[in-house]
């Protein structure tokens, strides 16, 4: 907490900013930024390959251009977030949290729209759609970090009251997203919560309780029929995709055929029959990994996983190196988020995870996800810069 007390007045802050302009760039984790940039840049060709034929007769580069614009906006967002004052971030956390809740609620207004069985999108002017639950992940990371790191010594564990408050605040967006049938995002949010409570140093019974409670909740939901049939179909089709004749099973089978046929070096860009024939659905977005697997082969897919791993490793390093609990919790939350989302997305393409429709961070086509990924990166950079100052 001592580091947190150090920042001086606004004037001194401005002065530090003046003389620290070079040092900001020096303090930035370039390996972290570089791996994310490589992922996004590389993703462009695969998004292009996957989407070229989607608008027959229209501009084949339509999705590519939008993807590049999204990446650009994402990078700008990352820099803005990374340069935000730490205290400012903490101060704005309740606001961000509130805005996220409102965003999710907007889905239930006429602005909301349903895509792929999940009512999780909001139409905004200009023909764009946003997925507020993506931003809600950011909000959960920040609000949990704020509550669990509040008013105590870094050596002591969070009070039960704080843990309860944190869980209560996290439950609101999680519950709302659950109502939108966005199972994948709920799983990621729950992972964030468990990871952050654990890293906060909360008593072991909290961590154990959350794990047991989560499992129980899943079983009860299943038994009581709260989970809709199509959700079960999605979740179980990966077990034996060849046998289940559902759309979900079809998707899983086609995804596996696409990746499997890539071999070592892949079919070559624009050459994958599965990709070019649109056999795999939403392959520019949720199933982008099938495009990489088919057209760039094992080499391309392994490089993708490696870049994501580097990113996670740098994030973990920032968390470990953080002397402040708030920063550590933010970094740990982001790492857990990105790690689980990566596993969920790639695992689904490889047929070892349920089909839950979550995008691959930094790679999948889709504005909100791309923005959220870069905001997450901005948060990691922010913690690092703060720790080094």
């Amino acid at each position, binding site marked *: 907490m001592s580091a947190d007390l150090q920042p001086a007045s606004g004037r001194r802050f401005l002065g530090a900013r003046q003389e620290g302009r070079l040092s900001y760039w020096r303090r930035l984790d370039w390996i972290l930024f570089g791996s994310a940039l490589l992922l996004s840049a590389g993703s462009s060709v695969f998004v292009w390959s996957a989407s070229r*034929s989607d608008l027959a007769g229209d501009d084949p580069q339509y999705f590519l251009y939008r993807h590049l614009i999204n990446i650009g906006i994402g990078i700008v967002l990352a820099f803005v977030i990374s340069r935000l004052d730490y205290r400012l971030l903490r101060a704005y956390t309740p606001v961000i949290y509130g805005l996220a809740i409102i965003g999710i609620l907007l889905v239930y207004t006429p602005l909301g729209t349903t895509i792929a069985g999940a009512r999780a999108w909001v139409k905004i002017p200009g023909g764009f759609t946003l997925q507020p639950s993506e931003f809600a992940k950011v909000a959960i990371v920040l609000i949990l970090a704020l509550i669990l790191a509040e008013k105590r010594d*870094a*050596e*002591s*564990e969070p009070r039960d009251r704080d843990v309860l408050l944190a869980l209560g605040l996290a439950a609101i967006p999680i519950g709302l997203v659950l109502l939108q049938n966005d199972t994948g995002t709920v799983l990621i949010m729950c992972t964030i919560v468990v*990871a952050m409570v*654990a*890293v*906060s*140093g909360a008593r072991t019974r909290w*961590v154990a309780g959350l794990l047991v409670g989560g499992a129980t909740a899943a079983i009860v939901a299943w038994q009581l029929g709260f989970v809709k049939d199509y959700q079960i179909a999605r979740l179980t089709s990966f077990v034996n995709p060849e046998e289940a004749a559902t759309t979900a099973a079809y998707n899983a089978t*086609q995804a*596996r*055929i*696409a*990746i*499997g*046929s*890539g*071999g*070592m070096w892949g079919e070559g860009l624009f050459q994958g*029959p*599965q990709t*070019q*024939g*649109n*056999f795999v659905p939403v392959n520019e977005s949720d199933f982008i990994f099938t495009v990489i*697997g*088919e057209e760039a*082969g*094992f080499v391309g*897919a*392994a490089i993708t*996983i490696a870049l*994501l*791993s580097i990113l*996670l490793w740098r994030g*973990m390093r920032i*968390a*470990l190196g*953080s*002397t402040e*609990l708030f920063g*550590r919790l933010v970094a*740990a939350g982001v*790492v*857990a988020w990105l*790690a*689980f989302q*990566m*596993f969920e997305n*790639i*695992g689904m393409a*490889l*047929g*070892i995870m349920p089909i839950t429709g979550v995008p691959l961070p930094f790679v999948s086509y889709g504005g909100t996800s791309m923005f959220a990924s870069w905001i997450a990166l901005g948060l990691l950079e922010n913690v690092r810069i703060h720790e080094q100052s």
Partner: protein
Amino acid sequence: MSEKSNVRLIVLGVLIVSLVGTLMARLFYLQLVAGDEYRAQAASNSTREVIAPAVRGLILDQRGRPLVANRTSLVVSVDRAALLREEDDGVAVLARLAETLGVTATSIEQRLMPCGSEGAPPLPVCWDGSPYQPVPVAKDVDTVTALTIMERRTEFPGVSAQVEAVREYPGPFDANLAHVLGYVGPVTQEQLDAQGDSTDPARLRSRDLVGRNGLEAQYDAELRGIPGITTLAVDQAGRVTGTLAESQAVAGNYVVTSIDAHLQDVVEGALDDAVQRSREAGEIADSGAAVVVDVTNGEILAMASYPTYDPQLWVGGITTEDYEKLLETKALSSNFIQGTYPPGSTYKVVTTVAAAREGYDLYDTYDCPGDYKVGSQRFRNFESSGFGPISLTRALEVSCNTVFYRIADEMWLKSGGLYAPNGAPDPLADTADEFLLGKRTGIDLPNEAAGLVSGRDEKLMVWEQRRDGWCSDAKEGFSEVRKENPRLADYYTALAKENCLDGFRWRNGDAINASIGQGDTSITPLQVAMAYSAIANGGTVYQPRVAKAILSSKGEVVTEFTPVVRGTVEAPPGTFEFLRTALAGVTTDGTGKIPFEGFPLDQVSIASKTGSAQVFGAESTTAWYASFAPADNPRYAVVMMVTQAGTGSLTVGPSVRTIYEALFGVVNGVVDPAQSVLIGGVPSTSLPVVKPDGTPVMPESEVAPTISPPISSTTASGAGP
């Protein structure tokens, strides 16, 4: 920072490492271990073959007249996959289609059902082709209907109207020839399975038609051709995204036969007349066959089987009713090669050759009593009464059985009699063996029967097969029969006992029956024709053949078949000359005289032999008339038979005369080769000409039937919307 937090962060890190490890392991498995399998799946996912069927080759007669051709037919097909994409599973589309075609929607639905699925009708109505292939639901649709369907694509999704080639039978001179030509039908699953994983472009595919009988089956590989294959890349919705490979269809080869359509028509008519003549005399006359063969090379000039059917029935799939009718009338049986009958007195020529080989003087005098006694058994003269001492020629002319009984009995005794050792000679059977009777002739038609010639070896073989049954029957004593009729059971038991003990013994009664083509001897009309050919040509047994040559669809000769000699009959010099003269006497002064009264035998002498063979269980005898001509310089052998028809002379003879009149051009008792049904009075010595465009050149003055040349009628059909 608390230790607890550090530890938990490290645990989180370890968990993440294990997640990444899991992903990498799975990736490694999918891409590098199971990659080939998935690549194959991807390939089958994303390519479609469009098959342009090859036009099946024509079958021509010896003058180039098309016996089987192709015509184009507008075929309406339904793509089941496209129908299922409709909201109501295509119910509305089918209803509209049924109305347009003027049929019921149910009948179309039944055609679309895959065989074996729930509620599917039996073959051939249900669909047993590939699920990706459009199912033909209507053939010979008129142009207006086809255009209606093609122009209103949105109302008929998945329905297409295409021009396809189907088999046509131009029937020159009204020749039917159903049994020789055969027919085509859908390829069977067995045939497809037998090919394994063949990638030969000419391989059979699930929608192919293949020859199922006759020449269509025998020369299927030649007639079929090679389909044109376009391999298309398609996307998930089936839209074509590119062409990967393309090959042109190669039309099937033509089969040129030695059949003369004009003669064939005469032979079919003559056979029909024989049946009618016999029926007018109160006989059943349920089946028959006729063969005309060139004795100098074994070429079949005409061949007919009664009852026959319209080969057109098979075009586009036979209906259940028609098929059942064909089965009921046994019209599908090619009696000339599939029916085996006791040859009766026509077999006496074989006995004569055997006698000559055993040293009998063909010009000696032989006694012809009314019957011939062997122990307590009396063998009667069937066709004639006693004639006293007569020449062997006369014995053949009047068909005196007892002369041949005596010869057979003597030969039997000489070769060892009842206790002849194994491998002892059997003069009559050995001679039949040299005529290659009781063996498949090897004609180029499928499913030929071998028949059977009775003899000592044959009897031993049968006994070895049936001994156990006979012996157990003898032991058991026919208890079932005994309840009803003890005397009959006693008789059966005694018979079984005798057969069990020495049923292998070739008795003189057996030899006597064999000498006049009775007993167990049962052979095909074609075998009789080939034996008479051998007598006519001096002992050469040819392999009968229908096809003369295989031509390409552009007219090039691919294969020209040459006569195949299967064997020669060894006989003392003068034996065949004797028979030729003696058999000519049958026609002038013997049992064959009546039908040939008024025929200019002085200009063309006919060598013939009648036969009336007894068949166990038949109402009356099988009427035979075996012949060749000219007797002094033989060219043709003509054999005709009708079952349960009475005597050969009266029922079949006049029909054989009709055939000879047509062959030699006999008009008002005068031979005029110009009047022969064969152009120039003889079989064609050259192959017919097929133009490079595939059109066969017809004889002058004959009008060519309108047949579609093979190249222009090639139409693509296959998968894809």
